[in-house]
């Protein structure tokens, strides 16, 4: 069981991710506001963050940079409806583990999450 944070400007998307991952036994914290999500990461234990790239005030890349600065070992999966080479390179350079394109398949999402968490476990980060 892992502490997972999901941030998307579309509320339904965060709700859906929460539903899917809770079914897998994880604790999911859903956010549509970047500042609240960042504050949560600073205050609470989080193993993995699932961030949309297009947000309301900031970009998912900027949020990832701040969160990685706070917790460098935190796992990260980036989601986007419009992938670009620039955002993908930036995300990976900032330490994102996966870069997925919406609409992502439920099974694919579950697999990606498990893979990132397993990799963290192997590295002794949990």
């Amino acid at each position, binding site marked *: 069981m892992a502490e997972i944070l999901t941030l998307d400007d579309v509320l*339904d998307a965060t709700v859906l991710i929460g539903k899917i991952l809770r079914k897998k036994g994880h604790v999911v914290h859903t956010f549509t506001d970047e500042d609240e999500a960042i504050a949560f990461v600073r205050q609470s234990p989080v193993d993995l963050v699932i961030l949309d790239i297009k947000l309301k005030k900031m970009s998912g890349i900027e949020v990832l940079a701040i969160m990685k600065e706070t917790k460098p070992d935190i796992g990260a999966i980036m989601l986007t409806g419009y992938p670009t080479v620039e955002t993908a*390179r930036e995300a990976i350079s900032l330490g994102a583990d996966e*870069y997925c394109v919406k*609409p992502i398949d439920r099974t694919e999402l579950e697999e990606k999450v498990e893979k990132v968490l397993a990799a963290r476990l192997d590295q002794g980060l949990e």
Partner: protein
Amino acid sequence: MTTELSTQPVMSRESSADSDLDRDRRFLGVYQKVSRLVSMSLDHQEVMETIVRSLTELLTVDACTIRLLDHSTRSFVLGAAHGVSLNYLSREVIDTEDTLTQVRSGTPVYSANAAEESCPQFRQAAAQEGIKSILTVPILYKEELIGIMRLLTRKTRQFTDAEIGLVVGLSEQIGVAISHGRMFKEMEDRLVFLNGIYEISTLVNSTLDIDHIFNVVVERAAVSLGAKGCTLRLINSESGLLELAASYGVSASYLHRGEVSHERNIQVVLNGEPVAIYDVRRDPRIEYHEQMTTEGICSLLAVPVKVNDEVIGALRILSDRPRIFTDSAIRFAVTLAEVGGAAIRKARSYQKITRLMRQVQGHEAFLASIIDSLQHQLLVIDPNRRVVLANRVYLEAIGKEEKEVLGRPYTELDSIAPEDSPVEQVLQGREMNPCLQTLGKDESQRWLEWTAFPIYDEGDLSYVIEIVRDVTSEHLLAEERLQSGKLQAILSLAGTVAHEVNSPLFAALGTAELLVEELRLPEEREELGVIIRNLKQIGELTGKMVSMTGFTDQKYVGERKILSF
């Protein structure tokens, strides 16, 4: 102790008339012999040598010397001698200053005992040579002193008034002979010098090779003046130092004896005045006495080398025998140096012009190479509309040789109408508007841009440059950019649409898939399946839209992926 004597013969006190007659006969004989001897030669040197040799015998003295007056230094230099050693002849002090002063005033001076003379240097020199008595008489020509004659004995001798009178009379004869000989020699020399100047002028004017001119000047100067050698030194215009340009007849060790520019003789020459030095071994105007003596140089004549009244160097003629340089010789050397200077100026000008010509040719070749290397067609036209230059690309484009094009009206060559021609716009003083010409069709279509620019010379139009540039690739690139811009706009729209649709689609599709697991009734599951299937079709559509933008993903190091177009 010297005795001043009257120039008039003093009558003998001998009472015997026979003795007087014998003496007079003997003196007449001597006089006749001397007169005959001096009239036999026109060479004054030969005259002097004959006199000194004959008089020792005729007047029964041990030695006789003749010294000539060097007007430049007012000193007496050796003309001829007989019966004394070279060591005695080369003494520094000829006689006491009293004796010389009296002789200069035209009075004979008789010294019975040289050991009693006041000047210690002369006394010592006379003692070493064993000289006892000395009779010194002036040699005059037209009442002007030209030298002195000295009769010397190694035993004390009393010269009688008659003997002194005879010697004075002989010295007058000798003065006439020497002067006539000198005049003849002067005339002879002038002829030689005139021929020399002509010869040198011809030689130096027949070449522009500056080194050859240098060598001709030094060689002919030495040969024409019967000298041992000659050096030519010129002032380096950049460093201001006097540098050896050429030499003749002197050794390398002499030439490398040291810096000469500070020697007084050179300083005088560089101020524009000639310098004649009879005895280089002692003259204070010379610094390297020893080296000159070793080289065998006795006398020197140095003259300035001038160009337009500016001294550019020094020519030094070196004689290996003691020599008084006559006015003719000095004038010859000065003239020769002037001729040489003029030739040097001409050769230097030629060198400068040649160098400039080479530079101009080099620049022309460089410019021609640049013009021919241009990828554009280039044509230069004069105000009469005739072609004066066409580059390689232009000639290739119209398929003509340069000789077929030069001088022809440009309107016969250019493929655009003159009324549209930028050249015509420039020639008419109008604003130049580039002209775009289209050639061929479809894939072989080409675009040429015609431009023209004026070249002014002091405000007047002297030439027009026409440049024809193939702008096909630029034209095509501009079209490609336009198409690319349109495509980019479409892709941007597709990406935005995909982005905005994918998030809600993800929420809707995922929620539907969760819901279908919870439904029990087959009809409901089937209906929700229809929704999921259609949502997936929308997802495929947005996927295609995303792929239009060129996005793909590929494996990166480890488990990561990178994305690329």
